[in-house]
Each structure stands twice: as C-alpha cells, then as structure tokens.
C-alpha cells in the first residue's frame, strides 16, 4: 500500500530515506507538503517544476536562509548538527529532547516534520509572543509571503522575478533574530 503523507492523510508522492549514523528514517510527503518544504517535484502531472531547470541551484542558495525551502535528495548524508550544542536528529531521536534554541534554527525543516507529527500536523505558532519578538513576527510574515511569491514565480518560469525575490529573502535573513 502506498504510504500517506506524514503531515496529512493524502497519498505521499515524495519518499525520502535518510540514513544517519547507520540509523534509517523515512519521510513521506504529499505534493502540497513536499512543496511547502521545498522539495522539487519533477516529471509530468503534479510537477511543481519541469525537469532540468536551473532553479534547483537558485533554491539551494536561498536555502541558506533557514525559513526558505530546502532542497533534499534521496541519499545517505552527513548528519546535520546544531552549531551551538551539537544536537543531531539522531541524538534527538534518542533523548526526545532538543538541545537548545539554536537547534530550531539549524534543523528547522527536519524539526518541522517531527513537530507536525506530534502536533496534529501544525508547524506554525498561532499564539502569544514576547514583546521582543514582535519584529520577528513581522519579518516572518514577509518571509512567508516571499516564499509563496517565489514558488509562484518558479511555477510560471518567471526566472528574473524569482531571482529578485530570492535576493529579497536573503536580505531579509538576519542571523541575530533566532533565539
């Protein structure tokens, strides 16, 4: 039976196997949630992108921004670790505890999948926020809008516009903002 999406009940169209320090884990996502996490779907029908476009390079660059979509592939990979406390997803699976606030920035997409599983599919905060975070909230709203615009530009093959949006996203990222 074809697995369903990790985040909803739709059939998964992206299947990723991640091997970290000998431990296997699997990610299954529907087209919508795959697009949300920045996976590039190739081929016909459900394609978000026609095959062979140079935009994967563009999106890889914007992935340096933690809120921007990340590009993933099916392969064994070096474990990504938090630069502040050293936590990896493998160590998180063992302890069930995140090491520090920086982990949420360094491993944002990986944690978003885990969080979605434990929080009824929710990955975005909708509640109160500290006073000091008001600026971040605005910034996040702008970034979300830019991410949507970028996806739209890519789907319409408007590459110059996509590049401008990417530059805006890079300018928006500020390493001091995540706590």
């Amino acid at each position, binding site marked *: 039976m074809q697995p369903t999406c990790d985040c909803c009940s739709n059939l998964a169209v992206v299947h990723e196997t991640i091997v970290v320090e000998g431990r296997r884990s699997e990610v299954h996502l529907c087209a919508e949630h795959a697009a949300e996490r920045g996976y590039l779907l190739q081929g016909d029908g459900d394609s978000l992108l026609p095959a062979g476009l140079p935009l994967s390079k563009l999106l890889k660059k914007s992935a340096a921004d933690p809120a921007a979509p990340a590009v993933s592939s099916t392969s064994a990979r070096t474990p990504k670790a938090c630069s502040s406390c050293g936590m990896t997803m493998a160590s998180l699976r063992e302890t069930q505890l995140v*090491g*520090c606030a920086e982990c949420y920035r360094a491993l944002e997409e990986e944690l978003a999948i885990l969080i979605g599983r434990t929080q*009824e599919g929710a990955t975005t*905060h909708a509640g109160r926020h*500290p006073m000091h975070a008001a600026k971040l909230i605005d910034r996040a709203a702008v970034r979300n809008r830019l991410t949507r615009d970028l996806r739209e530009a890519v789907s319409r093959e408007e590459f110059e516009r996509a590049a401008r949006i990417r530059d805006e996203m890079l300018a928006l990222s500020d390493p001091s903002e995540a*706590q």
Partner: protein
Amino acid sequence: MNNPILPTIAGFDGADAPLGDCVLSSRVRLARNLVGFNFVSRASPEQLADVVHRVQSARLGGPFESAVRWVNVQSTTSLDRLLLFERNLISRPFVESTHPRCVAISADESTSVMVNEEDHLRLQMLAPGMQLRQLSERMFVFDGAIERSLEYAFHPRFGYLTACTTNVGTGIRVSAMLHLPGLALVQELEKVQRSARELHLAIRGFHGEGTDALGDFYQVSNQTTLGRSEQAIVEQFAGEIVPQFVAYELAARRTLLERDPAALDDRVQRALGILRSCRLLSFEESIKFLARVRLGVSLGRISGVPRHLIDQLLLAVQPAHLSRATGCALGNGRDDRGPRADFIRSSLR
C-alpha cells in the same frame, strides 16, 4: 522540625469550587526557556546554577509580588521534596533529578515556578474545581510580568521554544483532575477515554504521567500546543471538553441512583464505615475509600461529612504529608498504615 514547609493545606479549601462534584482541581502550565542558555538536558551544572541565579534575581511579579518562597530543591530534605510533589507543586522528575534547581511558591500556594525542570521555567497555577478560564487569564498576566525581566527563547515559526517538541508553540498545558466514579461503575469509562484520545487529549492517573487512576481520579490535559492560540486551547477545554466529561459523569450517577440506590448506598456507606473504624490502611486503600465517600457526599447519600474535608484528606493521607502530620517514618518498607488509619479516623469522627 527545622524550617517546615507547607505545614497547612492552604489555597485548597475548595468548599465552593465550581463543578467541584466532578472536578477536583484545575491547572494551567506554561513551559518557557531563557535566551542564551542551552536547554536543561544539554546545560552544564554551572549553566543551570546560573539560570537559577538569573531567575531568582528577576522580578517575577504577579502572585509573587507580595511574598514568594524559594525552595532549593537540590539541598532540601527528601521529605520536603515529596511534600511538594504530593501537593502538585513540583513534578516527579523534578523530585528525582540531581542538578541545580529550585521552585518558587506563592503565599497561597496557587502558583509555582519550577526552575530547571525539563525547561528552564515551568510556570504553574492550580485551583480547586473548574477554574481554567480564570487561571489562564491570571497566568498570561504573570507570564507577561516575568517576560519584562527575563528574555524568553522564541522562534517566529515555532513560537515559544521548548526542550520537547510536544510543548513547542504556546507551551501551554491545561488540565483538570476529574472524579469519574459514576462512569467507572456503569462501565462507560473506556468509551469516554477512547473519545478523549480521538480528541488528542492525554488521560493520566492520580499523580499524572505513568500513574494509576486511583479512586477513579483522572487527569485530562491537552496534547497539542501548536497551531492554535492559547485562548482557543483554553476555551475548547473549559467550554467543551470538561463540561462534556462532567455531563457524562452526572448522567452515569443518575443512572446508578435510578438503577439500584441500595447498592450505591451500601458502597459509599461501607467505605465510610471502613474509614471510621479500621486500624490499618494503606495509601491505595485510603484513596479508594475516600473516593467512594466523596461520591456519596456529592450525591447527598452521606451527610455530615463536607466534601472539602474529603478533598483535604486525599492530600493529607499521602506518605510525606502523613509523615509530616503524625511524625511517622517515611521510606520504603516503612509501615505507615496504622498512623494513616488513626489520622483518618480522627478526621472523620
């Protein structure tokens, strides 16, 4: 006795507690972490001591404005640690861990702040009966006051950052300790528990996670902390979930009364008789019989015993409270059944 903590059961009278027949207590908890420190599981003892110092130096405000009692949980006696746990002011892991940690308790014992539990801060407010809305309003004011002195770790996408991803976002956990003997007797409890799980609620026993439902007391709490506002979470709990549990329980109690009142009377009066006359009583037995008497009092089948006395005894018969009240020994293998039976007999005379 040097520096006895919590010699009385303050703030837990509960005589007029809303929905007190079915709701023993309400609790609202927020999980928070401070900027600039690793979370507790990855912090060094020096960092954790620094967190304690930072929090103790901050102006916490709210219920702590007039008076606050700090207890150094690392250095206090094991009896005091257990007292705090039995009173739901600290958690079981907080009793057992060994790293630097402390708890702040308000004068009326309704508010506590655990420092260096799983998260740097666990803010908690407790009240008898169903008072989740009132508690949450007070809690948000308290949280706002703390935030003026301490900077919380926050992420624009994930919200308040916590050590466990099950708390991330709002960091809020609302819970109610429900007394559901009617549902247990009409054998509907399992069905209600199943529905609760479908609503993504956690159902735990007398002392929370991993404990048995002694005396048909169940702690029900939200499991989802992200994607909805604090107000929406509280409102669903206070406006829909708890009232629904209470409605089911009251319907079950009516069924019991209609079906076989003599059997119900025998059950609750027999429990009262045992409590008033037996000479040896274990903790588990005492909770079981007190819970039955509580049902009898709530249904008007037992008179002369106020419900809030039973609620106080439910706290007072626990090992550390009993040890503090009677001077009996506390610890594995110590037989405290005699002192417990004496204590309950004298209370229910």
